[in-house]
């Protein structure tokens, strides 16, 4: 059996202490295999975003462990952790988080700039990513001048540019109309199928969730089955 690219082992996460203590996750275990597409589904406040943050190594669990390729990520130091996030993960957010007044290309190459890739190489890989998303002609435009669908494609290009193993998509179609949303979904699933990038979609939209290989339902900090019973 192959080692899962990401795994959560009885992960608990709580915020605050005493009476104000809030348990966002109450013991979640999950294995995510290399190359699969998986959706984490839940309502607002269910703990799905917390789970994504833990899997993306943006946060540390209160107890339990997150494993990256079978190794405990909690043991990684700050610098290694930053490099791992930079090289392994790509992020697609509902709100695009594009830097205004900056060119599309500069936005796309941000992860490469953070990684310290040289200017020429950055440009080459940035243009490559934009070409894959049919946005090469917009490279010099200001990011804020694009339509919603175009912006989300820029965000996907940015997530792809460092050739990550895992893409986290947090409500990737939440801000788009149905038609544009469908196009963006198609791009993400196509990437997953053709290049084998692991796709983790966090959503409350069950239609979108149904298009992934499998769905994990979260409610009140626990994994439940589709009907809402504790799994």
């Amino acid at each position, binding site marked *: 059996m192959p080692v899962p690219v990401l795994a959560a082992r009885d992960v608990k996460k709580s915020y605050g202490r005493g009476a104000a203590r809030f348990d966002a996750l109450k013991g979640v275990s999950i294995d995510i295999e290399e190359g699969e597409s998986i959706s984490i589904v839940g309502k607002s406040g269910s703990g799905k975003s917390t789970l994504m*943050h833990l899997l993306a190594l943006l946060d540390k669990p209160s107890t339990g462990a997150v494993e990256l390729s079978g190794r405990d990520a909690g043991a990684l130091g700050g610098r290694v952790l*930053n490099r791992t*996030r930079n090289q392994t993960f790509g992020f697609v957010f509902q709100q695009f*988080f594009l830097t205004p007044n900056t060119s599309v290309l500069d936005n796309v190459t941000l992860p490469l700039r953070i990684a*310290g890739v040289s200017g020429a190489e950055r440009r080459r890989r940035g243009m490559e990513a934009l070409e894959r998303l049919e946005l090469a002609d917009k490279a010099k435009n200001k990011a804020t001048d694009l339509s919603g669908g175009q912006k989300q494609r820029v965000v996907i290009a940015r997530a792809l540019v460092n050739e990550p193993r895992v893409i986290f998509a947090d409500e990737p179609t939440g801000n788009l109309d149905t038609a544009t949303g469908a196009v963006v979904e198609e791009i993400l699933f196509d990437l997953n199928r053709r290049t084998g990038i692991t796709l983790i979609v966090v959503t409350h939209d069950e239609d979108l969730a149904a298009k992934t290989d499998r769905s994990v339902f979260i409610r009140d900090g626990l994994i439940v089955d589709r009907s809402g019973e504790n799994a």
Partner: protein
Amino acid sequence: MSGLDMIRSAVGNTFRSKTRTILTVLAIFIGAFTLALTSGVGTGINRYIDTTVSSIGSNDIMVVTRTAENTSDGPAKYEPDTRNVASQTASPGTTVRAITTGELDDIAGVSGVTSVDPALAIRPDYVEYNGGTQYQVSFAGFPGGTKLNLAAGADPAPGTSKHEVAIPVEYVDALGFTSDSDAVGKTVTFGVTDQTGGSTTIDATIVGVAQPGLVGTSSLTANDSLTKALYDAQSVGLSDASKNSYASVTVHFDPSDSDAQISTIKGDLKALGYDATTVKDQIGLFKTIIDAIVLVLNGFAVIALVAAGFGIVNTLLMSVQERTREIGLMKAMGMGGGRVFGLFSLEAVFIGFLGSAIGVIGAILAGTALNGVLANGLLSALPGLSLIAFDPAPIAVIILVVMSIAFLAGTIPALRAARQDPIESLRYE
């Protein structure tokens, strides 16, 4: 993120909110402009002093006077065999105990002293040229070896039997010469009245015409043989003891002596009861005063800069606030806190650099223009003085100081940015 990319990003970010950046830069500009201008005044005046130092005296002499009696416990007792002469350094009318011939040998005996010349107070009545109008004269009490700021000719030479004199520019016309160089080589006559009331005249050759300087704008300078001749002429009728009483003497030492050796000589003279002042000490006093004034002015400029520093804090805090999402995103993508700190610090330093560079350039332009105006107006009596001068070193120091103030101001917002939690920054509801 590589260093070059950091700088490029920081510079780019600076111009994202142009109005805000311009206003902050303007605040720093004002401080840096003032600082550059005030330190320019210091540089200008000190440079002028340095160029006119040589007209005060050369660097191998010290003026020796008797240490004043301690009168805090009542007046000093009179000692027979001592004489008083008019003091050349204390307030007018004051007398000091004279240095006499025998004491010159004591001074000459101090190790390191190569020769001793009494400072002869000469006061001829007039100077005339070719039987023309007679003019009053005064001689600068400067010791031998003096180098003048010459308009024509040469310094009066020591160690010759010829009577040589240098006259200030203002005497050239008065005495009837057509030009500065015309005066050189001509013979003028000094009239002297001695102690018995008799009059004598002494001829001297003009060897140089001196520019007015910070000191002695209207004094003539005589070489030692002319000084001696004039002194002898005016002292006719005095007893030898009176004639050979001096308020101060000039001590020569080896010009290659170190500061430590010079202070040893001073210490030895002090032990004998004499105060010694080198030219450097006199100039040092000038410079200390100028430096103190400039320091106070600089203090005001620094206050302006500190105020501008708060402007930087404000600007960058707003910037951090506006760019919360962007910072969060960069951190999520693996940018370390240190790098985020560096990015915002660099932005602050760049704003500081902009403000100080523009301020310094503005100060140089304004200073040059002001010099032009002053040279033809207020300061026309002091040719060669540019009130405001700029040296590369202080200019570089100003820019660096402003940049470090900017860096310090930037640490607060930069720390805030560096500590930002990416999850909090990227939350949206």
